[in-house]
């Protein structure tokens, strides 16, 4: 028997070997994997803190950890999850990998800056870890003054500087994406032929470039005030603490859209491919991303309804917050309309997409509850708020991230994952998530405040449910970690286009060659044109 040994196609994983070839790489695909490794580590770490928090809350008295330790736990959980996991999650991994591939070019506009931004991210992360090892920080991820500047007895400056540094990585990634999307699209790839993932990455990048510097300078001022004991925000020294909150939320509200817009982009891709239809109302979905980016900058005051902000300002912020829900709703309606009469297949990524749509809707709707002045005064700083944002960030973005990882995994690694296990874990994640966070809406509404390690016994039943759910959720996250790693070595080799999708990234080999395409693609149709694909396979 003669076996023809095909020469292995050179791809970006095999064309160079060794640690050095990774640490000095300028290939956007390898940098995406560097980020993937780093943020997976941070996610794991943030998860450990969450586990201890949930264990402490199993019983009403504060018996597992002291209140001081508890403060550090939720602070580190929030800081690591938001700044070191959620913000870079989709943009720095999937975005880095896919932006050049989807627009048909060889790399991002500035590959060296791309690598630099990974190092900056790692430096910021290392500083935060160092602060954590020295004893951590107990201000919450919000660093409210004057507690953070004058009273906290923990490593505030180190942590703030760490976030400051990591912020620049976010800025540089955004800048790189904007320039790339503007200047490097393949011939024929007009703005309205772009995949919706690109539109949402674009909108995200604008927020990163314009929002992040403000938190950077705010944290710098906090560090200056704390380091030199001079009053910028501390009222006892002549400053104004509410000004700090304005500056903080001017970034941090838009930042929530840095976290969710990329997820929405992923969902647009998934919904389209697994219902084999063009996304309904393409232009509306595209522009809703831009609208969210713009409106997102105008609503920060809804975090400050009880901060002594003027009632008139609160009224306007409340109104604008309702406005920002409109583009979010447009997306949800259009995804649903895309499903209508589609030929839907229930592959794992699509299961995650369904999860996203449902959970994001709940998160977004409770957002409008919170934007209602009267209601917010009742539930602000309770578990209702905690449930709201976890529905969006964990129920939404995390689902999209996992869905996207599954969907593009064959392209990234050249191997298929195990579909059975994947479906099972998608289900476990969905159930675990709801069990963890739905009870938090109820207890928050009933008055359970956030950030306390002890609570009255009547809330225990909800906390027990929540902790039970968290254990299920942890299992749901652990299973993919195992089969993904397994698949990297032993998975079935993936075809170039396992899902029969239309995007440019599927027209090159899996994994792609170092410069992405053998020949520069020329685009002649709109995105998601499944009728053409069908004709091609039939004819």
């Amino acid at each position, binding site marked *: 028997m003669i076996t023809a040994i095909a020469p292995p196609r050179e791809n970006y994983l095999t064309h160079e070997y060794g640690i050095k070839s990774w640490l000095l790489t300028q290939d956007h695909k390898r940098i995406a994997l560097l980020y993937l490794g780093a943020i997976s580590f941070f996610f794991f770490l943030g998860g450990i803190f969450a586990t201890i928090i949930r264990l402490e809350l199993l019983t009403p008295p504060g018996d597992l950890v002291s209140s001081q330790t508890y403060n550090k736990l939720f602070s580190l959980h929030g800081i690591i999850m938001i700044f070191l996991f959620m913000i870079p999650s989709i943009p720095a991994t999937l975005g880095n990998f896919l932006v050049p591939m989807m627009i048909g070019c060889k790399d991002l506009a500035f590959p060296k800056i791309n690598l630099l931004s990974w190092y900056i991210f790692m430096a910021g992360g290392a500083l935060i870890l160092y602060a954590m090892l020295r004893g951590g920080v107990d201000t919450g991820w919000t660093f409210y003054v004057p507690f953070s500047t004058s009273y906290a007895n923990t490593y505030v400056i180190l942590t703030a500087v760490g976030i400051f540094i990591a912020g620049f990585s976010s800025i540089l990634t955004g800048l790189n994406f904007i320039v790339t999307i503007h200047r*490097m699209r393949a011939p024929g790839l007009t703005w309205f032929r772009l995949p919706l993932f690109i539109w949402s990455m674009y909108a995200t990048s604008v927020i990163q470039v314009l929002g992040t510097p403000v938190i950077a300078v705010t944290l710098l*001022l906090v560090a*200056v*005030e704390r380091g030199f004991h001079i009053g910028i925000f501390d009222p006892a020294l*002549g400053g104004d603490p509410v000004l700090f909150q304005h500056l903080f939320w001017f970034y941090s509200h838009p930042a929530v859209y840095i976290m969710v817009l990329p997820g929405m982009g992923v969902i647009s891709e998934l919904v389209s491919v697994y219902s084999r239809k063009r996304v309904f109302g393409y232009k509306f979905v595209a522009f809703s991303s831009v609208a969210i980016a713009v409106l997102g900058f105008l609503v920060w005051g809804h975090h400050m309804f009880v901060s002594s902000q003027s009632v008139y300002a609160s009224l306007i912020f409340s109104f604008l917050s309702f406005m920002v829900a409109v583009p979010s709703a447009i997306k949800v309606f259009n995804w649903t309309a895309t499903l209508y009469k589609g030929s839907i297949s229930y592959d794992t990524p699509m299961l995650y997409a369904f999860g996203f749509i449902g959970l994001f809707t709940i998160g977004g709707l409770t957002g409008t509850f919170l934007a209602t002045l009267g209601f917010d005064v009742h539930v602000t700083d309770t578990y209702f708020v905690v449930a709201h944002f976890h529905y969006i960030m964990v129920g939404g973005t995390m689902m999209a991230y996992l869905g996207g990882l599954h969907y593009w995994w064959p392209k990234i690694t050249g191997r298929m994952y195990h579909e059975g296990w994947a479906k099972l874990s998608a289900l476990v994640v969905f159930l675990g998530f709801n069990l963890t966070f739905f009870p938090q809406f109820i207890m928050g509404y009933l008055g359970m405040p956030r950030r306390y390690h002890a609570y009255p016994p009547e809330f225990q039943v909800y906390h027990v449910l929540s902790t039970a759910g968290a254990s299920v959720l942890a299992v749901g996250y652990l299973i993919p970690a195992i089969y993904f790693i397994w698949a990297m070595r032993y998975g079935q080799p993936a075809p170039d286009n396992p899902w029969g999708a239309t995007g440019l990234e599927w027209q090159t080999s899996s994994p792609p060659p170092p410069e992405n395409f053998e020949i520069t693609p020329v685009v002649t149709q709109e995105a998601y044109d499944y009728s053409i694909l069908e004709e091609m396979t039939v004819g």
Partner: protein
Amino acid sequence: MANHTLALRHQFDDVDQQKDASTFGMWLFLATEVLFFGGMFCCYTVYRSLYPAAFGAASNHLSVIWGGVSTAVLICSSYFMACSVNSAASGRKNALITYLVLTILFAATFLVIEMSEWHNLYTEGMMPGFNFTFHEGDFRHVQLFYCMYFSMTGLHASHVTVGIGILTVLLIRAARGVFSPQYHTPVEVSGLYWHFVDLVWIYLFPLYYLVARHVHAG
């Protein structure tokens, strides 16, 4: 010609695209910078409108003369930067080197003047956190003025310092003959940055040295 293809990095199709991308990237970076400084300008604005009298009193301790001189120096530096870009575009290597040296010298002069200003304020006891002995009137908000003053001029000075570093690298590359009329994007892009740094000072100078001065206590 060989030089010109060498300078084209692999991800671009042609030199124009590469140049376009770099320039656009720098403009975006400057947008980031605007918001970076913007946060501090916002603090300044809020506090000045809350405590006009204290800000007026505080600003009378700054030397308008030296502030004016450093403004002039920085504008000259910016002018020589523009000349550098011009020389690079027309391929005059020696002129480029001369103008870059002048740009750097004026920038360094600016820093020297600023540091001596800081030193004076320190000896007068007007430096919060290090030596602040001023106790007349609404001294807490005078202190706030100086907190903002040192934070903002400090941030600006750090940008000038970074700028001097960039210009020095340009100078070395210019001396090696890297730049040509076909390829001088780094000079142009650094020029954008440098003018931006200058522009920030053009706002800082009046805000700290001039406008508040006319507000009188009472």
